[in-house]
């Protein structure tokens, strides 16, 4: 019987051929927690009798969700993480080094074919690398850091096949928003997703990360992009599905005519063509996050805003996904272009996306964001509304003061 990518990766780790539905205890290749989940992880690690993490080189802690610390309570939690990292000899990524998922990929904590467990729901982002990556909570992560293992039910897989190439001015974010709208926020619960087809083959690693990242917005355990066309700066063995692999569901879309997409409040699957929302006045534009804070995202925003000023009634916040992204955007000029256009640069990290600090919207305000979630209250104020779009859509809205199709700036 043929195997899916997830079944193959898990089989390799447990030393026998396994299929969807089987319960396994698997070795993991890496584990990480952020400052939202890390402190509870450390507490649980001690409570369960943990002395040493299974392998300090395969564990990481990242201070990104509330970085730098906005108050003394969080400052003390950060200190707890620094102390634990030092005591265990594991690397702690400091404030500003970047968002957990970005730094895990940049620093090669995760590679193709790996099983990676992260205490953050967007851990499936590493599916861009042809890895099996799952989000868990703090206690699960503590157990993984202690034992080097995770228990898993081998997931069924949904195949999403997209034929056709995206039009000029339409990006990976538009594609994944479209797919979230079709599959819905619970359409892949407990299941893995395989993204395959021509539309994904030409995508950069950054764009593949945008795609895999929003697997969590469909409830998926993991979301893996078919490795065809994946280019990395090191050699790797690609894991591809067998021809007769068993899929619980197959979606086929021709995306060659896809238009820019927008997700309206207050669920990521409330997605329509941008034309449905054109003219919606916005107060606040945000580009950043593990979904869309990478160099190509800042570059496309800079292309739209070059030599222009954002609308006087709009404020714009930029949080690069990592320090390395920030440095690259400084070197190629995109960062100065954005700042000259009126954007405000904040520390690399999760910032406004999780509603802790660095840009909470006011009552009644409308946000256009390149993030992945628009649940009520997500950015810290339940009386504001969040629209999600591609970085190009966010930049065009910042310029005009309302939601507008960005294509006229990109053709």
């Amino acid at each position, binding site marked *: 019987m043929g195997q899916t990518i997830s079944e193959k990766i898990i089989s390799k780790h447990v030393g026998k051929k396994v299929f969807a539905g089987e*319960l*396994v*205890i698997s070795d993991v290749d890496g584990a990480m927690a952020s*400052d*939202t*989940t890390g*402190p*509870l992880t450390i*507490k*649980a690690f001690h*409570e*369960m*009798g943990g002395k040493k993490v299974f392998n300090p080189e395969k564990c990481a802690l990242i201070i990104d*969700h*509330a970085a730098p610390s906005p108050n003394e*309570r*969080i400052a003390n*939690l950060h200190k707890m993480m620094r102390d634990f990292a030092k005591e265990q000899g594991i690397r702690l990524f400091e404030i500003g080094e970047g968002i957990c998922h970005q730094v895990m990929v940049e620093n090669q904590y995760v590679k193709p074919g790996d099983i990676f467990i992260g*205490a*953050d*729901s967007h*851990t499936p982002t590493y599916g861009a690398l042809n890895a099996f990556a799952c*989000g*868990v*909570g*703090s*206690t*699960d992560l*503590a*157990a993984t850091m*202690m*034992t080097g*293992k995770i*228990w898993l*039910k081998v997931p069924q897989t949904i195949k999403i096949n997209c034929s056709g190439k995206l039009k000029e001015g339409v990006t990976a974010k538009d594609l994944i928003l479209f797919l979230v709208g079709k599959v819905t*926020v*619970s359409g892949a*619960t*407990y299941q893995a997703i395989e993204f395959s087809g021509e539309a994904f083959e030409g995508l950069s690693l950054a764009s593949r990360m945008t795609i895999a990242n929003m697997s969590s917005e469909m*409830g998926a*355990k993991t979301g893996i992009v078919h490795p065809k066309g994946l280019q990395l700066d090191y050699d790797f063995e690609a894991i591809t599905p067998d021809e007769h692999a068993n899929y619980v569901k197959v979606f086929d879309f021709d995306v060659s005519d896809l238009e820019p997409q927008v997700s309206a409040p207050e*669920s990521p699957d409330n997605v329509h063509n941008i034309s449905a929302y054109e003219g919606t006045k916005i107060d606040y534009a945000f580009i950043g996050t593990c979904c869309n804070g990478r160099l190509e995202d800042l570059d496309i925003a800079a292309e739209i805003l070059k030599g222009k000023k954002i609308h006087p009634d709009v404020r714009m916040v930029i949080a690069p996904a990592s320090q390395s992204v920030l440095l690259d955007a400084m070197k190629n000029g995109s960062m100065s272009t954005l700042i000259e256009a009126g954007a405000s640069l904040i520390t690399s990290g999760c910032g406004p996306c*999780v*509603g*802790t600090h660095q840009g909470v919207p006011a009552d009644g305000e409308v946000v256009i964001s390149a993030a992945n*979630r628009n*649940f*009520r*209250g*997500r950015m*810290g104020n*339940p009386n504001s509304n969040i629209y999600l779009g591609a970085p190009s859509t966010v930049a065009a809205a910042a310029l005009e003061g309302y939601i507008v199709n960005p294509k006229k700036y990109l053709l």
Partner: protein
Amino acid sequence: MKATTIHAKAHVYGDHIDTDRIIPGKYTKTLDLSTLADHVLEDLDPNFNKIVQQGDILVAGINFGCGSSREQAPLALKQAGVSVVIAHDFARIFFRNAINIGLPVLEIADHNIQKGAELDIDLKAGIVKDLSANKVYSATKLPDIMIDILNEGGLVNYLTKHGNYSL
């Protein structure tokens, strides 16, 4: 699992209750779990933390707990006194987290439990009696390892006792 039978009142909400609604991100960065209870479900029902009684049952529709991986979500519910969550189905990370911290969760795809219903629950058997509507439901069986973790009161106790996972 200490108490295996529960008799309490149901608080009923709808579909897709995400973790931001269970406990907003701005309150999650703490180890003082009592502060979580102060804000539990506040963007969904600002009265919830005033009306919830120790032992009460939370009932919801599909995809309960979607969104973030924050374990603070089931912790906030447990801390507020919720003894069990029943839903048509759960988002996967919330489901694992709840079991890991010893908060029982029952998946009942066809329940039609109404607000204020009196429920009798046999957790071990996964049987829910809706005394108000005179109906009996049975929950989807948990994987064996989850039953073992729940029986120990959570993953911390499970690993303290066993030292590692076993199937």
